[in-house]
């Protein structure tokens, strides 16, 4: 057993209203620099639809992620080392900028300089790549709220095999939002695909990063990631990706997409896992079993044996305590409500999703009233087809989706009965294999979603803190002068402030007590007063 800690995220799709606040705040923090104009570390897609970049989920086409070879061994779908070294001069699987959408701006100045005329002046779109006028054909959010869906949605790879069951005509149309960030996978195919060894997982928290100084721009990470969440900065010539806002995480603060989510649908927490079991889990033959295999990789932080191993592996006690309170554990493992996005890619992603409930197609027999039979009967008549969610989240296992939706419906029915009619529906709880207090706990976590329960992030320890300043760009290029000054400044992290060394030894001299000293935590960034370190030295 090799215990490692990993940050994870769960998004409750039931509550996403598609406002794109996460995308906008992420962009303002991370990708408002030259060359990243087309890049959205966080984007929100309307499903069904092709997504961003177009059709990225179709690995028959893009060849991202992992697959099993004839003898059941795990192999990169985009080919091994030899194939990559041979095709390095033109990556055969790289999306074009047009698949993401050519970035554009408008000639706003024209509004001020246009001569007086009968008609109001209009601004024209100009390409951010060439500066020339351009036709708008595609963008990261082109299909928002099913815009153009009759033309594009049938190409959604998740509709394969269920075309008969899914109707896209207006009366039966369905949609929901899918916010996406980097999955920070346990078995990241981008890291495996990087010829330069520039990509890595942080041992302390599992965050996947690109070493900007080691990246040589070979682009295999972009094609290797099945979620297409590594991007190529077309000005710097380097790969960039979601950082899980590690400077904030190290300080015990949620990622910016989570912090600013108005629907309060994101959960952040720590998971302990056994690094020795990752490869076997990713190699399970039946794709529908990959979720369970990943669940088996996670270690129970309440198990004394796991705690002992964690301590031996150098994981601080307050981190283990945080893992015990992890909402990821609660939602993904304990109640099994959160599911991994496309487990069949075999990367063992660490951003999981609670599937959305939706109105029933036929409102004649609304399941309101708490009768579990009615609730369960309605699951298969929900507007969002169970099979579609299954292709998205369980590698096609529709029954697994039904189990989750039944539990979600049970929470609603139980709480409706309790709060509106004042009665406790034990039958509803037991019908989904849970106790009434479980449903109340889920109601609190999913509906009330208190800040401190949504985000359980232990601050980084000074002695463990991955400052990684060597991986962060601080310079500008020699042969491309002056255009990266601003971007480099945006990355500088030399403001890192550590507590004075030895301050944790201040105070009364140690007595004969055997009690362990308080953990020596030291946030690397102090952005607000409430984030002062615990342990009596703040």
């Amino acid at each position: 057993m090799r215990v490692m800690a990993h940050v994870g995220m769960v998004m409750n799709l039931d509550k996403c209203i598609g406002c794109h606040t996460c995308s906008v705040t992420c962009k303002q923090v991370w990708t408002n620099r030259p060359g990243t104009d087309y890049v959205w570390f966080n984007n929100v897609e309307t499903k069904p639809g092709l997504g961003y970049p177009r059709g990225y989920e179709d690995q028959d086409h893009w060849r991202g992620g992992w697959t099993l070879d004839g003898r059941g061994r795990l192999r990169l779908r985009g080919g091994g080392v030899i194939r990559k070294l041979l095709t390095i001069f033109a990556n055969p699987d790289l999306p074009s900028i047009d698949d993401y959408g050519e970035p554009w701006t408008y000639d706003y100045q024209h509004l001020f300089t246009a001569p007086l005329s009968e008609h109001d002046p209009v601004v024209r779109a100009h390409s951010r790549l060439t500066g020339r006028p351009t036709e708008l054909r595609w963008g990261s959010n082109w299909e928002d709220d099913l815009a153009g869906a009759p033309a594009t949605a049938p190409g959604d790879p998740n509709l394969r095999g269920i075309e008969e069951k899914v109707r896209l005509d207006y009366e039966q149309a369905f949609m929901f939002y899918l916010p996406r960030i980097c999955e920070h996978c346990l078995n990241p195919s981008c890291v495996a695909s990087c010829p330069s060894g520039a990509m890595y997982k942080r041992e302390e928290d599992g965050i996947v990063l690109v070493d900007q100084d080691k990246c040589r721009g070979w682009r295999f990470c972009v094609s290797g990631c099945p979620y297409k969440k590594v991007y190529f900065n077309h000005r710097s010539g380097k790969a960039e990706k979601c950082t899980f806002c590690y400077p904030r995480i190290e300080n015990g603060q949620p990622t910016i997409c989570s912090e600013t989510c108005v629907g309060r649908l994101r959960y952040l927490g720590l998971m302990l896992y056994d690094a020795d079991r990752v490869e076997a889990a990713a190699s399970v033959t039946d794709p529908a079993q990959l979720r369970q295999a990943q669940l088996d990789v996670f270690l129970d932080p309440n198990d004394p044996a796991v705690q002992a191993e964690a301590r031996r592996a150098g994981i601080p006690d307050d981190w283990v305590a945080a893992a015990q309170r992890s909402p990821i554990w609660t939602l993904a493992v304990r109640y099994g409500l959160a599911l991994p996005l496309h487990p069949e890619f075999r990367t063992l992603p660490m951003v999981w999703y609670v599937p959305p409930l939706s109105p029933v197609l036929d409102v004649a027999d609304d399941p309101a009233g708490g009768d579990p039979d009615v609730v369960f009967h309605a699951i298969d008549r929900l507007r969002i087809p169970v099979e579609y969610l299954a292709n998205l989240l369980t590698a096609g296992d529709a029954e697994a989706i039904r189990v989750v939706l039944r539990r979600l419906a049970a929470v609603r029915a139980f709480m409706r009965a309790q709060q509106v009619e004042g009665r406790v529906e034990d039958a509803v709880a037991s019908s989904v294999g849970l106790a009434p207090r479980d449903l109340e706990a889920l109601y609190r976590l999913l509906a009330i979603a208190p800040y401190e329960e949504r985000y359980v992030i232990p601050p980084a320890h000074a002695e463990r803190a991955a400052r990684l300043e060597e991986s962060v760009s601080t310079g500008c290029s020699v042969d491309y002068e002056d255009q990266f000054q601003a971007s480099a400044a945006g990355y500088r992290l030399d403001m890192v402030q550590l507590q004075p060394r030895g301050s944790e030894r201040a105070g009364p001299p140690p007595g004969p007590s055997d009690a362990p000293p308080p953990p020596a935590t030291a946030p690397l960034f102090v952005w607000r007063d409430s984030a002062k370190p615990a342990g009596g030295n703040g």
Partner: protein
Amino acid sequence: MSGLTLLFWIALPYVAIAVFVVGHVWRWRVDQYGWTTRSSQLQESRLLSIGGPIFHYATFAAIGGHVLGILIPASWTAAVGIDEGMYRAISASLGTIAGLLVAVGLLVLVYRRVSVPRVRVTTSRTDVLAYVLLTIVIGLGLGETVGVNLLGGGYDYRSTVALWFRGLFLLNPRPELMVSAPPVYQAHVILAWLLFMVWPFSRLVHAWSYPLMFLGRPWILYRSYRRTRAGRREAAANR
């Protein structure tokens, strides 16, 4: 020995080698962030996937030909039974194929860079300089291989240019060997030195990053702050 002889066949080579070496050391130390292929495949893929592989693979072949013709003494090839006539037949024929493919690849890439607006705007002044030098050097090289050795009467550069070149590194420069060489050989050599002087300051540095380390590397890489020098220092201080 005239001043120009000294300048072109002794001073320029040594200055170029110095700039090449010191330039690379300096660039490696101060500009890891700028050390990249600076690929424009995101903007244009179709022409690149034709021109890129042709150019690079043919260039490998051409470099191999230079190693064979310039670095390896004629006596060595003779020792394995390849006489001068056989050597010239091989180098002229294979050299012509490689050289023409390099030229075709370069033409596609230059056409792409000039005619595709998305690619053109990414072109820096250093790129233009490198492209111009590359084009001239490759053109002159074709002139030697095709014009002189394949179609013309041939020229035994292994007894002049090669000896002079190896002499530079043996600290025994013999500039008189170059004086008698045909002008096309002289021009090719001079422009090549200029290209080597531009090399460390251009995107050509990506040539040294061909990722052979990828062979035999574990798939998933981890990094730990604890194992860095700073991490160990802090852990020791906290103990």
